[in-house]
C-alpha cells in the first residue's frame, strides 16, 4: 500500500475519533446525530467496506 494511502487512512481514523469525541461530549441530540452520520462513511472506509 503506498505511503500516501496509509496517511489517508491515518487521517480518516483521526477524523473519526474527533467525531466520536464530539458525539460523546455533545449536549444537543440533533448535533449528536449529525456526528454519528458523519462518522458512518469514515468507519466504512476504515474497515475497508466502502
Amino acid at each position: 500500500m503506498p505511503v500516501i494511502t496509509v496517511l489517508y487512512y491515518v487521517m480518516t481514523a483521526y477524523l473519526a475519533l474527533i467525531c466520536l469525541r464530539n458525539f460523546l461530549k455533545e449536549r444537543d441530540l440533533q448535533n449528536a446525530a449529525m456526528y454519528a452520520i458523519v462518522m458512518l462513511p469514515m468507519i466504512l472506509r476504515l474497515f475497508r467496506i466502502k
Partner: protein
Amino acid sequence: MSRHALGKVIIALVALLVLGVGGSELYAHRHYKEPVVLGPGVTRVERLSKYHPPLKGTANDSLVYVLEGEEDGGAVLVLGGTHPGEVAGILAAIVMVENAVPIKGDIYVIPHISRSGSTGTQPSGGYPLYYHIPTEFGARKFRMGDRVTNPLDQWPDPDVYIHYPTGQSLSYVEIRNINRCWPGRPDGTLTEQTCYAAMQLVREHNVNIVIDLHEAELLYPVTNCIVAPSKSATIAVMTQINLSGDFDIHTEPSPVGYRGLSHREIGDHSDAYPFLLEAPEPFLDQPTGPKTEALLLEGVDEFLLAAGKRGLLFVDYDETGKSIELRVGRHLTTTLGILDEWNFNFPEAEIIFECPGYYEMLENGVGAYLRNPDAVDPSRVVYD
C-alpha cells in the same frame, strides 16, 4: 439514565444497525464471485498478472479467457467491463466465453478488465448491488459495478490527473478510469498497471484487433456507435454500412487531442487496430426514475420518454425501451461484423469464430446463452 444519555444510546444503536446491515451487504457484494462456465471454445484461462506480475493478487488481476482456433490466423482481444456499470459489455464478453467456437485465429476475452470497479457501486447513485439474468435453470446473478476503480484499491485521487505519457491534464477521478489510463505504465497506479498489462498481452500475442465494449447515455451523442481512430476507420465505416439494416449504428472518429482512451492509445502504442463500441443504456442517464434492476435490464423510463418526445435524445427511443438483449446482441454482431471486414482486408490474418448475435439475443434472450454452472463438470467453472 437521563433522557440525554438515552437519546445518545438510541442514536448510537441506530448508527450501528445501519453500519451492520448496510456494511454486511456491501462486504458481500465486494466479495461475491460470479461463476463463468468455460464454453467449448475455451482452451485455457489466464490471469492478467501473467503479463505484468506486480498485478498478482490485486483486485485487477482479472481473468483472461483464451479461445484458440484449430487453424492459425490473427488474434482479437475483447474487453468487457472497462466501466462495470455498462453491463452489456460484460454480458457480451461472458456470452462469448460460454458459447464462441473459434475456427481460425485466437480470441482473448477479458469480461472484467476493471475487476476492482465491479466490486463497488457508484457512491450516492442508488444502484442495485446485483442484477439477475433469467435462464431456464434459474437466474444467473451478476455484480453491479461502478465506472472507476474501487477507492478501496486505489486511494487517494490527486487534485489533477496527469496522463502518462502525454502529460495531458484530466479530471482527478479519471486516474481510476481504465479508459483514461491507456497505454498505462508498469510502475503507475493500479489502474495504469492494469492498462499496461493489457498492452503487454496485445504486444506479446501480436493481437490484431482490440474491441472495447461500452454503453452510454441516450442524452450523450457518442452512443449507438463504433469509435475508431484513422487506422481503423475504413473497417469501422464498412461495418457500419453492413449493419445499418439491422440496427442504428454510426462511426465516431477517435479524437486525437483527447488522451488515455483505448480507441486512441492502443492503436498509437501497438500495431493493433482498436475499436470501441457503444450501446445505449438508459440506466446511465441522469434524469431517470429510480435506478432499479428493471431499468438496467429493460431500459424503459418515463422521463427519458418525455425527453425523447422533445427531441433531446441522441437515439430513437419509445415505450419498448432498450433491453439488455438488444444491447448485448448489437455488441456481439458488431464484433462479428468488424472481424468480417478485417478478414476481407487482411486475409493473411483471418479471425473466424461462431457466436450467437443480435437476432439470437432478441429471439431467445441473453439467458438462453448462459450455461448452468451446476450442471457441468466443476473443472469447467471459473469463479471471478
